[in-house]
């Protein structure tokens, strides 16, 4: 079974040379730590930077330089700043190659819910609805089950939706799955995890073909 860093490490393998990538808050943020250093990638943060770098060295924080999680960051050589409308033009206009974000639930037809739990404090969707509605290449990073042990890969989302039919790939602590017309196609299993474990943790339709290889992380 993977931990959060393991999930990030596996997703980093999906990042290709020349990609512009938007990372969501939480596990997705960790992906930046594991991208191969022999490829050229630029990270976009929707509050208005391309070419986002690591956190600043202590004492060099700049209040005018943050990411979408409101954390202090740095800018790498070649970075650029822009306004929010331009930022979402990059996203809506499909100029960003890969979007990695977290989710509370994903359904077998690729619907995603990650912004609202009825009855609990609603903080808002931020940029998530724009991202999922527009991006062609979306990877969801999440734990396979919630804290109560219930599956987060469902036939239908029970929570209010963020977007419909948009998720293509999911990497969890247990598996790598692709969303297909017939449901969740199991691609890989996490180290030490069996296909039976994944079946038991998946409520939606799980498609298992032939031998499922263990992830290389």
């Amino acid at each position, binding site marked *: 079974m993977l931990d959060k860093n393991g999930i990030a490490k596996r997703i980093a393998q999906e990042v290709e040379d020349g990609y512009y990538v938007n990372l969501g808050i939480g596990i997705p943020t960790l992906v930046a730590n594991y991208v191969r250093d022999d490829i050229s990638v630029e990270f976009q943060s929707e509050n208005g930077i391309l070419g986002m770098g690591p956190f600043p060295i202590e004492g*060099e924080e700049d*209040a*005018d*330089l943050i990411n979408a999680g409101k954390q202090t960051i740095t800018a790498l050589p070649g970075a650029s700043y822009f306004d929010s409308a331009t930022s979402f033009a990059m996203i809506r206009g499909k100029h960003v190659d890969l979007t990695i974000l977290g989710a509370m639930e994903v359904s077998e037809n690729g619907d995603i819910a990650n912004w609202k739990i009825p009855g609990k404090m609603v903080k808002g969707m*931020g940029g998530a609805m724009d991202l999922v509605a527009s991006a062609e290449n979306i990877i969801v990073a999440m734990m396979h089950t919630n804290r109560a042990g219930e599956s987060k890969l469902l036939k239908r989302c029970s929570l209010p939706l963020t977007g419909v039919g948009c998720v293509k790939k999911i990497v969890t602590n247990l598996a790598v799955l692709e969303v297909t017309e017939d449901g969740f196609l199991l691609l890989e299993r996490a180290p030490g995890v069996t296909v039976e474990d994944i079946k038991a943790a998946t409520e939606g339709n799980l498609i298992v073909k032939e031998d499922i290889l263990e992830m290389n992380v």
Partner: protein
Amino acid sequence: MIRKTVTNVTDALAGVQDGMTFMLGGFGLCGIPENAISELVRLGVKDITCISNNAGVDDFGLGLLLHQHQIKKMVSSYVGENDEFERQMLSGELEVELTPQGTLAEKCRAAQAGFPAFFTPAGYGTEVAEGKEVREFDGKMYILEEAFKADFAFVKAWKGDAAGNLIFKGTARNFNPCMCGAATITVAEVEELVPEGELDPNQIHIPGIFVQRIFQGKDYEKRIEQRTVRQK
């Protein structure tokens, strides 16, 4: 040159009244119009609608206006990093209209650019789409979103000149340029009001035509919400 300079924040906010709709730039606490917010608190205007990506924190930014119960409605994409906000929202004192961030930016830009509305895929199939016109283009579904209408836009820039030309710094740019010219009156506060002719016209982010009033801001706190650092 058409001069836009006013001497202080009080003159800059002349005409602000109860019940008005304001746009306020900033993302989190980054690039917020600190001086305009302080003046709104001092003026005590009530029943206002604020269009702003976030709602500040308990003791800074728009949180200051919330504490005085001056805000009737917030239009934002992400809120609730603020206990008072949560309390007022749950008690029904505060109306909240959550809007996807890109849609929020574009509703500002549309107002600035003279578009009454636009189609966006963001929110299709979700509760954001409820009651909105849906249309299909090239096999993909979109919803119709209308431009904002606001009385004042309060923006903060790094540098500006008497003509109202603005230059922003880092990610403090965010929603500020989108809001310039998107309200009846745009008020820009700047960290540095430079003599005319000093800004290179090639480097200007927002031309002065989108700004009605500009003033030299003061006492910027520029608070950091999440201070994250790494070791050397």
